[in-house]
């Protein structure tokens, strides 16, 4: 499926959108990203693809089907586009329960390809939320419901606007895992928007970089985003709590780099490249720290494979594809995260 987008649209003030890009989801993988700072036109571009914003001039094609052409002809209204748009904060219908929100999407499912309600609820772990109102949901829960509602409508493409930016660090990796699962299980390509490098690297293989309303670069994620800090590694941000014998991480004692042992809750940085995974509790090892957890998700990240583990807090580890295979890692697998004290740096 090829998404071919050219949009020109003046906004009030001096900002205007003038960009174009072509994404081939079949060739480049199921997830692509629009990456750029806040105010670079990412959300407006998504809205134009969804048909929610009607640009002054645009040519948008998806899978060979025109959504609109330069003359403004063939304007395809949103229902006909069959594109799932998940705006920021999820935007659930506030007068409906979670289930009613999901059913609204389901009722309008177009095409026999739409996934079933039970299936979506299972994959996104929505069953416990169904009867709840939308006001009481956490940010992560709202995103999951919004994602489920969009998927239930049977879209050919998902447009995700900053799907996890509103979440705290701990929830973010988990939420990205749900996006991945949806794309994988329901075979829907996704274009997502983010200003966070780590999110883009985690999910997308193809990236379009936007700046001030223009598309300035387009290509493989690693190229467009440039060399990653610390050689492809991303930083885990972990919350430390003071314990009787030094700091603890999710209830387990850990050793940290240096002498600065925090005596109050603190954040620590742990590069993903510095984390080892083991299937069993390791012994006779110089590494000071070992935390049990469960694999949340596995994704390619350049030459490495990025494994997210729920160890009370989400910890991302970069492994070689061979290690992932030899350890038979899959979502749900029980693992131990192992890392040296030197790798866990308290940052305040």
């Amino acid at each position, binding site marked *: 499926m090829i998404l071919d987008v050219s949009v020109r649209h003046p906004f009030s003030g001096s900002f205007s959108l003038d960009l174009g890009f072509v994404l081939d989801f079949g060739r480049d993988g199921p997830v692509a990203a629009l990456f750029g700072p806040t105010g670079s036109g990412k959300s407006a571009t998504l*809205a134009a693809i*969804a*048909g*929610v914003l009607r640009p002054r001039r645009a040519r948008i094609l998806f899978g060979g089907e025109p959504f609109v052409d330069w003359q403004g002809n063939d304007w395809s*209204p*949103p*229902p006909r*586009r*069959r*594109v*799932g*748009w998940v*705006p920021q904060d999820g*935007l659930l*219908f*506030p*007068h409906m329960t979670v289930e009613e929100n999901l059913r*609204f*999407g389901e009722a*309008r*499912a*177009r095409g026999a390809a739409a996934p079933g309600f039970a299936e979506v609820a299972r994959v996104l772990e929505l069953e416990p939320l169904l009867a709840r109102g939308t006001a009481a949901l956490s940010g992560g829960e709202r995103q999951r419901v919004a994602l489920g*509602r*969009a998927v239930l*409508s049977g879209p050919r493409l998902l447009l995700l606007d900053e799907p996890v930016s509103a979440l705290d660090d701990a929830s973010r990796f988990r939420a990205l895992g749900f996006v991945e699962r949806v794309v994988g299980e329901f075979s829907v390509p996704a274009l997502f928007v983010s200003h966070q490098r780590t999110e883009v690297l985690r999910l997308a293989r193809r990236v379009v970089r936007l700046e001030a309303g223009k598309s300035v670069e387009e290509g493989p994620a690693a190229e467009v985003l440039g060399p990653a800090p610390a050689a492809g590694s991303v930083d885990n941000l972990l919350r430390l709590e003071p314990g009787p014998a030094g700091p603890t991480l999710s209830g387990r004692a850990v050793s940290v780099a240096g002498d600065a042992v925090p005596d109050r809750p603190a954040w620590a940085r742990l590069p993903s490249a510095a984390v080892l995974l083991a299937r069993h509790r390791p012994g006779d090892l110089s590494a000071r720290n070992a935390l049990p957890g469960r694999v949340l998700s596995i994704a390619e990240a350049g030459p490495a494979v990025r494994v997210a583990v729920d160890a009370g807090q989400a910890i991302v580890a970069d492994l070689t594809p061979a290690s992932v295979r030899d350890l038979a890692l899959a979502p749900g697998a029980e693992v131990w995260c192992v890392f040296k004290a030197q790798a866990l740096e308290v940052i305040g």
Partner: protein
Amino acid sequence: MTSALLLSLVVGALATLLALPPAVAAGWLFARRSFPGKALAETALLLPLVLPPVVTGWGLLLVFGRRGLLGSTLADAGVPIAFTAAGAVVACAVMGFPLAFRACRVAFEQVDPRLEGVARTLGASKSRTFLAITLPLAKGGVVAAAVLAFARCLGEFGATMVFAGNVPGETQTLPLLVYTGLQAAEGLDAVWAPALASVGLAFLLLAAGERALRRGPA
């Protein structure tokens, strides 16, 4: 007095039913769309709010009177409007419309248009989106609009007097009964009951309207 009270309630209810659909439609239009002459059109729609009601009544006579633009056709068809109960309903609806229109417009403006966008991308038609998303979310404001229009109808005097007359049992609503009582030679005893009934009704309606506005969407 009972017949005037009943007539007031029936005329008020029918006039509200008559005024509300165009008020909802216009409220949505002015909240969601921009078009040339919008400001002018809005002023025109709000005109009955500030015009002397007798002028509005006279305008209605020009249109719906026996020799009026539409009135002659309607009269020929056997549906006279002026100086009938139907005329009282029309006069009240016209007077109540601007209030209902404004309340609806504000109510629709407070609904996040992106929610409508989401519904559309989920496959809902425009009308389905309006009925399932926009209207329920604006419900509090629309109920308040109905209450306001109804309350305005109960107090309506000038336009009704000019356009529908003051016929007991046919067009004599509570305010007209009060007025008639004040004109009568035998003293003010006949004024008390309809006047107090008006005060009571007004009190109830204001409370109900405020409640609907505060509660918002259910």
